[in-house]
């Protein structure tokens, strides 16, 4: 699978390393060259410096024939913007978007984006570790 990952922070670099190791064709995009130091030393994918909110940059890194696009920069809005460009302008078959703000995440999920809010996921995991699994808001005091 050909995957473009925007944002080479902790999550982006770990994901890129793992997918690359599994044999996928990975391209990582970040605005800062020093972000790539987080990638594993044996990373076989491509690294590009550039801003993914510019559609010319996305085109240059080959988003046109990518099977998947994943936006994991620190900025919710940047992620939302480029995911919509990938999905609606370039027609990438699978797009995933990280949005920290749970309300914003819900809104874009309702608008048809495949989204994930690490805020909610993290809180739920910690909750389950502490209390045990239960439905959110299920009356467990």
């Amino acid at each position, binding site marked *: 699978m050909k995957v473009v990952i925007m944002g080479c922070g902790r999550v982006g670099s770990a994901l890129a390393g793992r997918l690359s190791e599994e044999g996928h064709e990975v391209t990582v995009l970040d605005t800062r060259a020093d972000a790539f130091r987080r990638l594993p030393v044996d990373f076989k994918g491509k690294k590009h410096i550039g801003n993914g*909110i510019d*559609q*010319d940059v996305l085109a240059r890194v080959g988003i046109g024939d990518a099977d998947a696009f994943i936006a994991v920069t620190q900025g919710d*809005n*940047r992620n939302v913007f480029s995911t919509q460009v990938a999905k*609606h*302008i370039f027609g990438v078959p699978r797009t995933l978007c990280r949005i920290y703000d749970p*309300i914003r995440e819900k809104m874009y999920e*309702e*608008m048809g984006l495949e989204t994930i809010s690490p805020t909610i996921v993290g809180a739920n995991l910690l909750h389950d570790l502490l209390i045990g699994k239960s439905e959110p808001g299920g009356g467990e005091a």
Partner: protein
Amino acid sequence: MYVIIIGGGKVGYYLAKELLGDPLHEVLIIEQDSAKCERIAEELGDIVLRGDGCEAATADLAGFGRADMVIAVTGDDEDNLVTCQLAKTKFNVPRTIARINNPKNQEIFKRLGIDTTISATVAILAQIEQELPTHQMIPLLALAGGLELVGVKIPPQARTVGKAIKDLLLPHESLVVLIISRDGVPRVPSSETVISAEDEILAVARRENEDTLRQVLTSA
């Protein structure tokens, strides 16, 4: 009219100031930076809310629900997009306007449902292109449904010179709406109107047909 402006920089500030000149308008600026908020409050009065205009809670507090218009003029295209999408989808704001920096984002915003985009870059480009004979067609205004109002100057050697509008092979869904002749007189054309050299033509066309329209009207 209740107008909410997101971004209290220079564009937002002067926009608010102009709008406040009309007593019919109620204006609110949303700005994150406290120093900017203070300056606006000092100079324009109590019309500023400190907060993030991309956040639903702020939008709720600001009264997006009763806003007639939301105008996003921060310096970041992606923030302006999110604010306008929030206004449209969550609060059903009738009209949203976004400032954009990258001209290519105009198309993206349109596809994502934002009514109007304003780009200083595009405006300046249009001014420059007006001076260049090679670019004979200038996009003037983006209209609804992927249509655009364009201006074309007919070069003297163009094949269209001397032809009636009905004899032109205009692309699908294109319309010549106004002709300004060399002497500066505007005319609403009929199908019999004949094109002259140096005519300024205002036409409405689908964006994807712009190149074809330009060729039909200007090629020698």
